[in-house]
């Protein structure tokens, strides 16, 4: 067996080990590489930044499940911190049942950092099933869909939602999702009600969202952990996203090297077989 064939038949657990080492080392030896801001992230940041303080709230739909947590939770933290730092009111909800606990954790943690007051600066409406039915229903009246917040307090008792009836009173909706919920906001809030919508999605989904971005159906887009890292850079509060970028760099390089070795070994072994 030639060396090329040996390389091709390597036990995959060696590759697993290489990946594990490559992801861990940068945590202990940070490279501190700067993260350049891209236009889709900048435009979402600008849309949030332009919101009036202590006025109509941003509606943040935290629609992700644990499976996509590392990509999307840094986004919710960054956006919530941005809002609380600027005194922009936030209403949080979720279209995914698992989003209930994750949304609650994100908003309470961020609120604690900035001493934001529940009911006055932010509210958590909880979960409602039915995606499209929920989004359309909120276009008629939010109270029909969410008569009370997640803890049972009537929506009318929450100062942050006073005078907020439907999308006419919400300047911006942002959906953070690892599934089709972000698209559903485009279909059912942007199309029928012309609601301004922004999205944060996993990197897997991000390339599919460029048509919406280009057509103006989305005001901005965060794609994966890199998108979160850029947003963290914009609010000058580096956290999980920025921390992950060093490992991301190292592993991407490693995978490219693996692809190159795999191809080289494949073509060499094939040439030897067909003299």
């Amino acid at each position, binding site marked *: 067996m030639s060396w090329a064939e040996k390389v091709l038949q390597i036990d995959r*657990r060696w590759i*697993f080990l290489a*990946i*594990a080492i490559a*992801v*861990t080392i940068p*945590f202990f030896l940070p490279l501190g590489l700067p993260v350049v801001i891209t236009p889709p992230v900048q435009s979402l940041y600008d849309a949030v930044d332009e919101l009036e303080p202590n006025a109509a709230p941003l509606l943040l739909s935290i629609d992700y499940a644990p*499976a*996509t*947590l*590392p*990509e999307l*939770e840094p986004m919710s933290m960054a956006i919530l911190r941005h809002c609380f730092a600027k005194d922009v009111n936030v209403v949080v909800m979720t279209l995914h*049942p*698992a989003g*209930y*606990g994750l949304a609650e954790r994100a908003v309470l943690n961020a609120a604690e950092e900035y001493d934001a007051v529940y009911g006055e600066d932010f509210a958590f409406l*909880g*979960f*409602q*099933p039915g995606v*499209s*039915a929920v989004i*359309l229903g909120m276009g008629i009246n939010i109270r029909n869909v969410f*008569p*009370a917040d*997640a803890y049972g307090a*009537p929506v009318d008792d929450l100062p942050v939602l006073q005078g907020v009836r439907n999308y006419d009173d919400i300047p911006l909706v942002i959906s953070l999702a690892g599934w089709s919920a972000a*698209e559903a906001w*485009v*279909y*059912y809030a*942007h*199309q*029928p009600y012309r609601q301004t919508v922004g999205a944060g999605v*996993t*990197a*897997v989904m*991000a*390339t*599919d969202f460029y*048509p*919406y971005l*280009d*057509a*103006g*159906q989305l005001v901005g887009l965060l*794609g*994966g*952990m*890199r998108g979160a890292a850029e947003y963290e850079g914009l609010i000058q509060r580096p956290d*999980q996203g920025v*921390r*992950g970028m060093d*490992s*991301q760099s190292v*592993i*991407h390089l490693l*995978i490219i090297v693996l692809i190159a070795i795999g191809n080289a070994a494949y073509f060499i072994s094939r040439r030897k077989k067909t003299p």
Partner: protein
Amino acid sequence: MTFIWTTIGALLTLSIYSFLYKDNPFYKFAEHLVVGVSAGYYLVIYYFNYIHPNVFSPVFLLEIGGEPIGFGSFLWWMALIPGLLGVLLYARFFPKIAWVGRWALGIYVGGYAGLGLSPVMQARVIEQLRANALSIAGVEDPFAAMTNLALAVGIFAAMIYLLIAKRNLGAKNPLAKVGVLVVSAVVAYGGWLVLSLISSAGVVSLTNILLVIGLLGTLSYFFFSMKHKGILGGLARVGIVFLMVGFGASFGYTVMSRISLLIGRVGFLIDWVGQIRGIFGA
């Protein structure tokens, strides 16, 4: 206390990673545990966030959001009927009466199909065609115009490739053909609206030509299943190039996504080790 919970999370995380070496009881334990726990979690969340306030409470406790309602009142019926329909879905577990579940399913399937029709057409078809048309119009910088033109050609080429490759629908049933005709008519109408909008804005004719080609190409999706020949075949080749570069971008992003998930978990484990060191003063 927090540390104990974090440790449980960390040990479960390590149990899952043990699968990388080979399948083992720790992995199987964690895998089955999460199936049960998540099902229980979802059940409770669905019940308390929706079924209790909107079905159970009005029907049995006679109140909605703390306000009393009358037994047999309009609101009572409006909570009871969907609740009963929901219960009908469970008839599937009893083969003899399984068919009753179809009544509820009919409303559900039809309702959601109707709900999606117009927004999907707007968001995925009309807006996309319009955005594409506008991107060529009114651009003075020749490089930008070339880029946009490439964009337009790429989209239509990719579509035509898909049309030929997919041979969608295969309408054998005459009723299906009616459905297809209706879709086509709606699409043609949408396209015509877009066209008139653009021509009224005095946009270059190139845009219109491309749009017409695109529209015809799109409609051919429903009517033809052709071979890769002639102009269509050439366009389809261009389409493949665009599709492949697009898939390449998707693959790169998919790698990025998966790696991010790993980074998140490794970060969690490293923080946990930090906590242990903090507690034991190492």
